[in-house]
């Protein structure tokens, strides 16, 4: 329970909604995000059944802790944060795969003077136009979950850096550097696809 409370509240004042208000908030502000929530759950777990469980779990928690939600604030960000924390606590723990991202390394990399001189994978806009199948989706899914997450939040869901920082409980600087690294990795994947599709590696 302590852990769950941690997942949800950020030391916000508690509201005291009536049953009717709770129902209105739940159906009016929470349920409209179900498609984005399911997609997020699916992209995190990469499994349809796990995604369903995770999303259902998240919505039940959201209802249980609805008094921690302040009307007029960003319901989508609030829900995404609960889902992300539920994923970490309930799913990642079970998974045998260790967390492979070395953040120290990422930070150092991003802050180094070499950042502009790095070898950018040669990928051309034209090559992207032929990626009409699952290439992009597969490339995204192949990234480590922490890198996948920032791309989903930013590019799919359009969250601002500040909102992402709150959802992920990390500083904005880390949001930026993680996003930067994630895009670099995604480009490397797409570049590999492009090569296999016959695009030459020339920089025209």
């Amino acid at each position: 329970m302590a852990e769950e409370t941690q997942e949800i509240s950020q030391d916000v004042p508690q509201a005291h909604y009536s049953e009717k208000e709770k129902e209105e908030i739940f159906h009016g502000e929470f349920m409209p995000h179900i498609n984005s929530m399911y997609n997020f759950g699916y992209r995190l777990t990469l499994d349809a059944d796990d995604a369903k469980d995770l999303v259902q779990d998240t919505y039940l928690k959201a209802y249980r802790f609805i008094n921690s939600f302040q009307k007029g604030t960003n319901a989508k960000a609030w829900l995404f944060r609960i889902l992300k924390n539920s994923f970490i606590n309930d799913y990642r723990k079970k998974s045998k795969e260790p967390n492979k991202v070395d953040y120290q390394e990422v930070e150092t990399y991003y802050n180094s003077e070499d950042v502009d001189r790095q070898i950018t994978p040669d990928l051309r806009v034209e090559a992207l136009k032929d990626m009409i199948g699952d290439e992009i989706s597969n490339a995204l899914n192949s990234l480590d979950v922490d890198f996948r997450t920032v791309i989903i939040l930013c590019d799919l869901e359009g969250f601002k850096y500040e909102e992402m920082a709150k959802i992920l409980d990390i500083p904005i600087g880390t949001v930026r550097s993680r996003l930067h690294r994630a895009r670099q990795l995604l480009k490397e994947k797409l570049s590999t696809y492009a090569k296999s599709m016959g695009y030459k590696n020339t920089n025209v």
Partner: protein
Amino acid sequence: MNPSTPNPFVTNGKKSTCLEMLQVILDGEATDEQKKYFKQHMDNCMPCFKGYELDMAIKQLVKSKCCGGDAPAELVEQIRITISQKIS
């Protein structure tokens, strides 16, 4: 570029690199001043111009290809039923 124009990308006395500027622009986090500065800068910086084109194309592609469809109807139904039981 007018050298007297202050660079709006300076934070803590440190100038942003091209890649850092690009990301701020791409994600819609730039101020109007930064956007104006970047636009001028991009005209004279081929890596920035190419980077902008490519990154924007990827961002749009990710959005169009990875958003998924609707959540499964049975999931939506299950949540509605569970919640309505709690409410009543």
